[in-house]
């Protein structure tokens, strides 16, 4: 469904945490890599959308975000605990 605009920023934070927990997303802390981070995050969003059979857009749309907010198991979807 369409995104309700005003909470996009916090949604992005939430999504980043989700992708770190379950899709092995690692963000470069150095802000010089901002563009690289965004690409890497888009890749991880695509990976998550593909896992759940969502439309693979690489964008944090509402359907993707809502799927991230569903109660779930704490085990990652793409790698085991080290």
């Amino acid at each position, binding site marked *: *469904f369409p995104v309700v605009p005003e909470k996009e920023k916090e949604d992005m934070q939430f999504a980043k945490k989700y992708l770190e927990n*379950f899709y092995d997303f690692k963000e470069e802390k150095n802000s010089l890599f901002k563009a690289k981070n965004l690409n890497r995050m888009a890749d991880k969003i695509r990976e998550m959308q593909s896992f759940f059979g969502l439309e693979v857009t690489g964008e944090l749309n509402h359907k993707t975000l809502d799927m991230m907010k569903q*109660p*779930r*198991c704490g*085990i990652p979807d793409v790698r085991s605990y080290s």
Partner: protein
Amino acid sequence: TFPQSPRWKKEDVTYRILNYTPDMLQADVEEAIAKAFQLWSSVTPLRFTRLYSGQADIMISFAAGFHGDFYSFDGPGGTLAHAYPPSSGIGGDAHFDEDENWTKFTTYNGYNLFLVAAHELGHSLGLGHSNVFGALMYPIYMARDTRDYRLPQDDIDGIQALYGPPRESSALPTKAFHPQEPTEMTPAEDCDPHLTFDAITTLRGEILFFKGGYVWRKSPYFSDIEHDTISSFWPSLASGFDAAYEVDKKDRVIFFKDDQYWAVSGYSIEPGFPKPIQNLGFPTSVGKIDAAVHDQNTKKTYFFVGNRYWSYNENTQSMERGYPRKIAADFQGIDHTVDAALQKNGHFYFFHGSNQYEVDIKNKKLIRIMKSNSWFNC
């Protein structure tokens, strides 16, 4: 499975329940855990023995927040539990987030311990997540009937890839576990001239048409009509609705089924639902409603039951005085019951069978009659 497919190198695996959640009776916790193990032993050669002291292969515990491993829990919602693949030490152990509300029921205000434990013990035995919707090892929690719960075929395939089928003597043949046969009727055709609907609502600029367990989705952003199962949006509301309406200022859609209603925002069901429709002010003589539609201008919602309708004030959250009234008395030309109702472009659309009646919102006068599926660009 997990990388390198770790599995128990023996058929006799032990488990121990280290502590209990205060949300449930201890006996109910023990029963849920035992039933979850039985699910896996019935399709493999594995046998599970409960220990009451010392070190067991699978140590089961409830904890909140940081609890001694690298994966702290996150409070209510979000992560419900986690478990480790087979190995020594923490391997096999299953942890449940005590900040959740655990229950032996499958209601909406708690998580069913048997379902979550069955999933986590899948990990304790070496299974990873499945992306098959409806599989037990699907990562997202789905409330479902646990009486006579059957392990979906995807999970049987996964666990038998690790441990093989049960010994002939010890359990039901795996063929006894058929995947849940889809009980859904085949979806009706979009352009069938006799098409009728159970409920219709707007949602964030889109229009959703419900029939049985299916929903047609008409979006201003895409040209074609999307046709899905309701369960792909709201897994726990899969059976369909009698009525639905949106209060767009609150980004909220209300669904009705029999004498209950749910509030959703996007895909999320608001906590505390379902509620009885009497909460809205209906008399107990009303067992279900036929249709509902919200008028954004007046902030009033109209509920249709048989040949009468009620007016509900969303601001005061109460039924208006002087209702119910006869539909035909106020909506000229609507001389029958209403199956579904929609508010769009300054008009009401009342659906009755395979016809829809376009009514001017202000003067409540009938403008024209069309086929119910005229929105599908047939």
